[in-house]
């Protein structure tokens, strides 16, 4: 009798669990790419987690220990770079402390926005169908969790593509790949392990060092920053890019203010920096990781364009800049 009851319960449980799992699969399968992106947008803001992130690019592997919480609208993060100089980044709201253990120094910076470490994606501004297509390609496991893989495919060579693996339970991005020309992964950021949980102890976010007697650098990199109207425009930007912000910044040791124009296609941002020429250098291109830059001189101003986009894009934008009056 007892055995029979156990059997019935087990059968009921199997039916229920099977139904739940099947329902979940159906729900996941029915979700549109936009549904997933919306879920991701919520998840990167609201999810608290800690884990290990691995970044692979240009043949180099870097590992980061990361903790992220969101409490009462305040983002708190801790990132420890496990290689090199062991840089530790502690974020409490807008204030960011970069701790350099080798130098026993702390650099204080300010981030004037609510973006989080993993807000790689996009706002509703992105115009899927115009510059990119997005589709769900696969379901597989990442960091031990089931994930849906989204492929974001650019329509032209002016931008990179992305593959993003989203946790099916929370929508959190567990893995991202930046895809270059001919589908080459240029950069790979992946959680090797992750623990998603609501209650992360405050002590987990504390610095690993007692920094009271260390040297503190509190001078911000940019002393003044405000929105301005600029007379610099680009005649021929790649399709879909438009100005989203124009800032004027005064940098330490700089005699003249720097104009910073930010272009976006809804997914990626490209920065245009305009400053009076102070040296004899004419033009050049460079790259750091998957970011490219191009610098040239126009009307006695140095115009430098930087972004995580192909070289052709920064070059075209730089060369098409001109003063409108």
């Amino acid at each position, binding site marked *: 009798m007892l055995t029979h009851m156990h059997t019935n319960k087990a059968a009921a449980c199997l039916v229920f669990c099977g139904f739940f799992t099947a329902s979940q699969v159906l729900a996941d399968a029915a979700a549109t790419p936009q549904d997933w992106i919306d879920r991701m947008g919520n998840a990167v803001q609201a999810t608290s987690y800690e884990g290990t992130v691995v970044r692979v690019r240009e043949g*180099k592997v870097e590992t980061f220990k990361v903790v992220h919480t969101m409490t009462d609208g305040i983002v708190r993060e801790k990132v420890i770079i496990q290689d090199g100089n062991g840089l530790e980044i502690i974020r409490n709201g807008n204030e960011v402390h970069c701790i*350099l253990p*080798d130098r026993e120094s702390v650099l204080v910076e300010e981030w004037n926005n609510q973006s989080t470490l993993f807000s790689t994606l996009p706002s509703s501004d992105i115009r899927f169908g115009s510059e990119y297509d997005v589709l769900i390609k696969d379901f597989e496991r990442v960091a031990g969790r089931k994930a849906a893989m989204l492929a974001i495919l650019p329509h032209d060579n002016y931008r990179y593509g992305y593959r993003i693996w989203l946790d099916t339970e929370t929508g959190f991005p567990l893995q991202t790949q930046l895809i270059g020309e001919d589908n080459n992964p240029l950069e790979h950021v992946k959680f090797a392990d992750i623990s998603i949980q609501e209650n992360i102890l405050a002590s987990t976010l504390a610095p690993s060092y007692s920094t009271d007697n260390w040297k503190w650098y509190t001078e911000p990199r940019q002393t003044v920053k405000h929105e301005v109207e600029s007379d610099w425009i680009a005649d021929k930007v790649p399709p879909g890019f438009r100005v989203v912000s124009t800032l004027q910044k005064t940098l330490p040791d700089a005699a003249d203010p720097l104009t910073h124009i930010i272009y976006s296609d809804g997914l990626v941002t490209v920065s245009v920096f305009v400053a009076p020429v102070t040296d004899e250098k004419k033009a050049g291109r460079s790259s750091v*990781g998957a970011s490219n830059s191009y610098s040239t001189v126009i009307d006695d101003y140095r115009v430098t364009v930087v972004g995580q986009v192909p070289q052709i894009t920064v070059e075209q934008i730089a060369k098409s800049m001109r003063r409108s009056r």
Partner: protein
Amino acid sequence: MNEAIRMQVSAFVDGELPDNEADLLVRRLSQDADLRQQVSEYLAIGRVMRGEYTVQGGNALRERVAAELEERPLQEPADTVVAKQPSRYVRPVAGAAIAATVALAAIFGLGQVADVDNAMPETAIVADETVSETVPTMNDDDLHQYLILHGYDSNSFSTRVTSLQIRADELSGEAAAEDPEAEDEVEVTEPVTSQP
């Protein structure tokens, strides 16, 4: 990558995979660039997690696959090449040679990660062929400054972290300049352990 492949790779790296299975694994990897990428990441991540910077068995596997690729005509599907794209200015000149090089480099990034302790990204300055007769490069300090500023306004994890890495490196330089006796310490890197 399924569990069977994962186990085969592990066994190969440990020198425990029978020869006939090793041959099959090498052949399969030589024919499937996606799988090579997955195996590369699997080995690289495992190595990082174990705190190892070299993996002899991984190198052996890479060499075997490279040898296999050299023996057969290369038919690399356009969407499966894994390594960093060669310069578009080079490709028309080098053609098939570049394709073969990319495919070989793409076998594993493993051979290139021995310098994993060099976390600070290098700024690669590339000459501009259209202006190279004037002054082909820009001032590194300016570029670093712009990369930092761009990173602050970026919504990409990678870009923002890189921006802070550059800023921290800059700060290290400033601190060293202020404290000449500490100059030698710039090269010292010690592993950092997060406190619970």
